[in-house]
């Protein structure tokens, strides 16, 4: 291995890696400081330095790498899916439905996106694919009303998991966020403990705006955990490192494709290694 001094130029190369992975300036600075601490001007191989970088990123992510636990004492266990437009909410519901069905649970899906064209049909296809029941009303119906109906039906039928899809909304749209608040309120009216999970779906291609998304969705809908999608592309999703440091919210899953099985548990180590540009471990 070629060894090289960890000097200013070498640190700048590392900085580039993190910036280009969307960690943002502040988080990048913090991690670069940690990497150089005690190593500045020492000889180190290119591979070693990436290992150190990956370890630093991993340290930030480890506390948030937590599985989604379905508490079976809630019947139904209610999951609310939220996020900005096109992030991957409906697809992630389909993937989760598959996983829960494979675990032997009964699953119901509520077609709470009553706004977007063919959003209901899209969820129905996922229902068919995974053997989950779908509760839907015509396009344009009140989303909160639909959620309430679905809760009632899920309870009556003794369903294990109810996932409520919602329309995509940008967090700076007060009217749409108020609508989401109303959905949460109605769900709580039915069961004060619900939703038992409110999952915010983040798109890995998103840059610094994802930090705002987390902040405002958390305030509006009490986000309990995160899912990051589209990590099968060229985006590294590094904004998650800043979000982890800031919010401490659990990250449950990552999306790595459009198929029903393209959902993986979030691994701090794998994610960190990918950011540092290290190959996957087996």
């Amino acid at each position, binding site marked *: 291995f070629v060894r090289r001094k960890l000097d200013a130029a070498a640190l700048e190369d590392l900085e*580039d890696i993190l*910036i*280009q*992975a*969307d960690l*943002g*300036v502040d988080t990048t600075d913090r991690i670069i400081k940690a990497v150089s601490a005690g190593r500045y001007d020492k000889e180190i191989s290119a591979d070693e330095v990436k290992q150190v970088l990956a370890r630093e990123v991993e340290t930030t992510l480890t506390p948030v790498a937590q599985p989604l636990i379905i508490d079976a004492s809630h019947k139904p266990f209610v999951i609310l899916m939220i996020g*900005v*437009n*096109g*992030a*991957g909410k409906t697809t992630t519901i*389909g993937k989760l439905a598959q996983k829960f069905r494979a675990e032997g649970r009964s699953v119901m899906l509520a077609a709470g996106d009553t*706004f*977007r*064209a*063919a*959003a209901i*049909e*899209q969820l*129905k*296809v*996922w229902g068919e694919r995974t053997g989950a029941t779908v509760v839907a009303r015509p*396009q344009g119906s009140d989303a909160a009303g639909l959620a309430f109906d679905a809760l009632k039906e899920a309870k009556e039928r003794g369903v294990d998991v109810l996932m409520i899809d919602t329309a*995509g909304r*940008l*967090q*700076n*749209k007060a009217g749409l966020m108020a609508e989401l608040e109303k959905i949460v309120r109605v769900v709580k009216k039915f069961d004060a403990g619900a939703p038992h999970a409110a999952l915010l779906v983040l*798109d*890995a*291609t*998103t*840059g*610094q*705006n*994802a930090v*705002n998304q987390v902040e405002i969705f958390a305030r509006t809908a009490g986000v309990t955990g995160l899912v990051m999608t*589209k990590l*099968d*592309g*060229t*985006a*590294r999703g590094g*904004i998650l490192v800043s979000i982890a440091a800031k919010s401490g919210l659990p990250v449950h899953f990552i999306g790595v494709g*459009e198929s029903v099985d393209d959902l993986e548990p979030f691994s701090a180590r794998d994610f960190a290694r990918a950011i540092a540009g290290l190959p996957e471990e087996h």
Partner: protein
Amino acid sequence: MFESLSEKLSGILDSLTRRGALSEDDVNAALREVRRALLEADVALEVVRSFTDKVRSRAVGAEVIRSVTPGQMVVKIVHDELVAMLGAEGETLDLEAVPPVPVLMVGLQGSGKTTTTAKIARRLSERNKRKVLLASLDTRRPAAMEQLAVLGEQVGVATLPIVPGQSAVQIARRAMEAARFGGYDVVMLDTAGRVTIDEELMEEVAQVKAATNPHEVLLVADALTGQDAVNTARAFDSKVGVTGIVLTRMDGDGRGGAALSMRGVTGKPIKLVGTGEKIDALEEFHPQRVANRILGM
């Protein structure tokens, strides 16, 4: 943010006015702040670099040194260069070709292709009185074709009948035939979303292009995109030769650095911007406004 960049630059540079000359360190300190501001606005690193190089050569020039407020002068230079790099006002869709004119829509998953397809169709049919045919070549996403059909109905534009089992290329050919036969002016070809490292799907869209010879190939991209904007823009441009970019979700509170990134690496104009989910939320691109936004003004 702009104020704070502006304040920072003033703080760094304005105290030097009396000295009458800027040292290299002064300029470097100022450019570091410019760099940070752009990175925080999601401008891709390589574009930031080429941008700060341009600013550097002007910042060491006489206009700054002689200025009473060098900080403000540098801010102005940054702003002007941003506008210049973002491209000219009023670049719009070019449909001057023998009808039916094919328009191919490409992009990553969920970027807003289908919605934008319908928005453009509405504009062309209502404003420009063109007879438009919509066709979905998305054989993958559940209910993608239904989505376009519903939107077509909403905007009063015809959609190609759905024939299950056909490939994207087959549908594209059928769309062109139907358009010739039906006397359509424009055919909007909506495609499935794809990640750029999916070689099979990138090849598919190249084949669609070869089969239809589109007059416009529009890359539809999310304004909230981060550093990946350059990879996406380059990959689509090199595979299908993008003619223009549509930036969606400009109604968000993102800073829109992707505009500069994509324009910077492809040189292709941003032709339209999406400003909402609603079908009329489509606007012209104004470089001045986007420059202000990147700088947080």
